[in-house]
């Protein structure tokens, strides 16, 4: 466990130089959201942007390691490749969750500020269920992106990995979009029974959690396989 703590310390200290940029990023988004939106808009934009921003911010640790060729050096110490992969996932998950929490706090602050700046929106109710849904959705959405991105970065490096993820996300969008288009053209009526709908609605948080854990685990196994074979 000390190894993981050491790696996390390294990444957080490296990312410290982004501290000011991050604060500016948060403030700019709060400002933009207040200026352009109503109460609901502030919540959705801030929660998603903060989750996304922090999630992507954690990925910068790969670039620092790559620039210093730190992975090679780290392997000369009492660490394993498994420790290195595990730590990157812990960092990414923590960044996404912290981003979502900052987003939530920022959206509350934004709403309070909005009620003073634009009093016409002060009557709009703050829907807690909707906000939580947005929070979970943002965490899962950004999490899914990371699950694709991390193995790509381990395989191709931070720079090339960014290009690869664009290609992969583009392909996924194409496949999903194509599938919907095909279903539409085939004129298939897919309507789940009431029982299925009730089941999904009742167990949605558990289903989402299981799916998220499954995707993260799958991504971790792929990354581990890549790193074990990688020539540092």
């Amino acid at each position, binding site marked *: 466990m000390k190894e993981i703590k050491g790696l996390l*310390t390294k990444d957080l*200290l*490296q990312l410290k130089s982004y501290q000011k940029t991050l604060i500016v990023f948060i403030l700019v988004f709060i400002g933009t959201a207040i200026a352009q939106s109503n109460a609901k808009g502030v919540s959705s934009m801030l929660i998603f942007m903060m989750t996304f921003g922090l999630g992507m911010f954690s990925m910068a640790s790969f670039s620092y390691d790559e620039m*210093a060729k730190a992975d090679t*050096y780290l*392997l*000369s*110490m*009492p660490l394993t490749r498994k420790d290195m992969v595990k730590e990157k996932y812990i960092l990414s998950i923590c960044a996404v969750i912290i981003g979502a929490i900052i987003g939530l706090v920022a959206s509350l602050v934004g709403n309070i500020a909005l009620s003073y700046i634009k009093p016409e929106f002060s009557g709009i109710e703050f829907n807690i269920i909707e906000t939580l849904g947005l929070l979970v959705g943002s965490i899962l959405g950004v999490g899914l992106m990371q699950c694709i991105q991390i193995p790509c970065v381990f395989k191709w490096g931070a720079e090339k990995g960014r290009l690869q993820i664009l290609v992969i996300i583009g392909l996924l969008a194409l496949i999903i979009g194509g599938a919907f288009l095909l279903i539409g053209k085939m004129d298939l009526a897919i309507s789940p029974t009431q029982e299925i709908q009730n089941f999904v609605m009742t167990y949605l948080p558990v289903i989402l959690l299981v799916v998220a854990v499954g995707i993260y685990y799958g991504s971790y196994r792929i990354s581990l396989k890549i790193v074990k074979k990688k020539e540092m």
Partner: protein
Amino acid sequence: MENAIEIKKLTKKYPGFTLEGINLSLPKGTIMGFIGENGAGKSTTIKTMLNIIPKNKGEVNILGKNMETSEKRIKEEIGVVLDDSFLSDYLNLEDIDKIMKQFYQKWDKNLFYTYSKQFNLPKGKKIKEYSTGMKMKLKIATALSHHPKLLILDEPTSGLDPVVRNEMLDIFRDFIQDDEHSIFLSSHITSDLEHIADYITFIHQGKIILSKSRDELLEQYGVARCSQKDFETINPSDYIHYKKNRYQIDILVENRTQFKKKYQQLCIDKPSIEEIMLLSIKGDK
């Protein structure tokens, strides 16, 4: 004598380059200089022995333990300096201390700051603001601060001016004062090794071509310099390599005294490690 490093038939294959069946032993309490031209396989040997690069074949034992079964325990007891990699340039001394104390059980903060002070490393500055010499000193201070028994150093003096290089060599001399300590040091600056190494190992195109004690090399080997006419009188079994220069032929011989007795008319000198390396690599047989 117990060995600090024992490598048997270490093999690593790449398309276009093979590290072939490397065998070497470093007796405990000594320094081995590992030399060869750029691209000869020095860094690959070090990275493969440390399992940074997965090997194809071979066995590595360090400090009496097998690398396959005791990798973490071995790495707790060694200090490594790699030529081209370290931690991020955006960190400073305090950051390095905070990170390293998590990695090494025996990390000694006081020792780290003592070395940093001795090497005049500024505490608050980020590594990116350090000079090349300072960066190397930092790598060495980091490698020494968890009380390692063995130092494995890849090109620790390359890119450094003679003054800093000498400082480095003094640090290595201090470290080796303890009989339990050993150093494996790769370099292409052979003059450095002539001063401190007890053993010299040459690597060329992924193969070890020579591994002997420095004294044996410098006291027994010789370089005879002669004309083409004299060269023709020498029995090929009496020399190892020769190199034709513009005005003379340099001949590398394994036993200077015996050669001198047999060919009294020829001039034979004590060679430098560099001459032995050049003749072994560039010379003909």
